């Protein structure tokens, strides 16, 4: 019970934690407030509870594939929010104006969506087994450990991205966001294949012998860049397309010199 709950919670927390840390690093570099983290996570938690309460109804939608469709929609929305954020950062480099204030709002929405999507599974898992008191204690312990590991990895990534050497090359931070965003699109495509909304084919390749998806590194890469050992052609196509768009924006951001490279890092 303990390892199961650790793994379930860690897997779900990790994605949201990494997204928060990438956003936090971008905000820090842009000199924007990071006070959106709390509201974003809180909103997401409310979303996760509401989603888990309505999962019976949602699952019935579209002849039993509502869960996949809603999940995929949220993934695509997060991707579009990433594109909008990159667009606003680019815009600032040409014309500094009030639009920059929209960035934290978009970050709140993206984090809330990510927490809703990942959190609802945790809520269902914990709620489903909380009736047995003896299980509740071990499960809560596992959940706390899992959440702790996930958040720690997020904090680690944040400090890594805030390192002055990396900050001087914003293409790294935005490039990582681009890979993350492309992974979201690939996951969304997979969900729509599972729902039979997109045609399915045999996998394009199979790297499970080299790097199994259920290994630690495989899981980390799955969350970070959407690694899939046996991807369908559609997944590879949307991943590449999504990556190209965000990466092109990342490179333009890097060249625009929008980042205040020499700002006081102690503040």
């Amino acid at each position: 019970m303990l390892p199961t709950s650790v793994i379930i919670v860690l897997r779900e927390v990790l994605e949201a934690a990494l997204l928060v840390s990438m956003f936090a690093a971008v905000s820090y570099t842009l000199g924007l407030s990071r006070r959106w983290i709390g509201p974003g996570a809180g909103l997401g938690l409310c979303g996760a509870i509401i989603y888990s309460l309505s999962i019976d109804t949602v699952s019935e939608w579209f002849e039993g594939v509502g869960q996949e469709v809603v999940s995929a929609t949220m993934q695509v929305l997060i991707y579009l929010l990433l594109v909008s954020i990159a667009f606003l950062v680019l815009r600032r480099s040409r014309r500094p104006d009030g639009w920059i204030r929209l960035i934290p709002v978009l970050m709140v929405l993206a984090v809330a969506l990510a927490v809703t999507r990942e959190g609802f599974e945790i809520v269902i898992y914990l709620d489903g087994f909380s009736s047995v008191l003896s299980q509740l204690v071990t499960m809560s312990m596992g959940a706390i450990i899992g959440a702790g590991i996930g958040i720690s990895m997020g904090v680690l990534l944040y400090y890594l991205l805030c390192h002055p050497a990396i900050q001087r090359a914003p293409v790294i931070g935005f490039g990582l966001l681009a890979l993350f965003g492309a992974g979201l699109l690939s996951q969304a495509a997979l969900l729509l294949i599972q729902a039979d909304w997109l045609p399915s084919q045999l996998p394009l390749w199979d790297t499970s012998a080299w790097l199994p998806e259920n290994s630690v590194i495989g899981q980390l890469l799955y969350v970070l860049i959407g690694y899939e050992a046996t991807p369908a052609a559609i997944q590879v196509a949307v991943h590449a397309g999504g990556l190209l768009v965000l990466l092109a924006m990342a490179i333009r951001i890097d060249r625009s010199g929008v980042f205040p490279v020499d700002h006081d890092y102690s503040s």
Partner: protein
Amino acid sequence: MHNRAGNTVLWMWRLTLTVLGIISAVPLQAGKPELVLEIRNHLFLPAEIILPANTKVKLVVYNRDPTPEEFESYELNREKVIMGKRKAVIFIGPLAPGNYPFFGEFHPDTALGRIIVK
């Protein structure tokens, strides 16, 4: 002005409904073979399923337990939460010949099964 905006919204809404209708009607016409799987006492029944290669199958999983379960398989690239006393539809395949294990993420010690594709 208001009317025009309203018309545009109405038109877009109709278009969305039509597109959704077309998309959701496609799988109906295709008529994929259906396969039933049950979860009882955190076990998959049957625990082993044999499928023909290169065929798409509609897997219907009934969760007879009062507790939720998550159908999960890395080999099949599938993941879906199934609430207690509910069923879930999961489309799988086409698959190449081989073994495709699956498990219940909430009870990974007992809820184990595999699909053998021949």
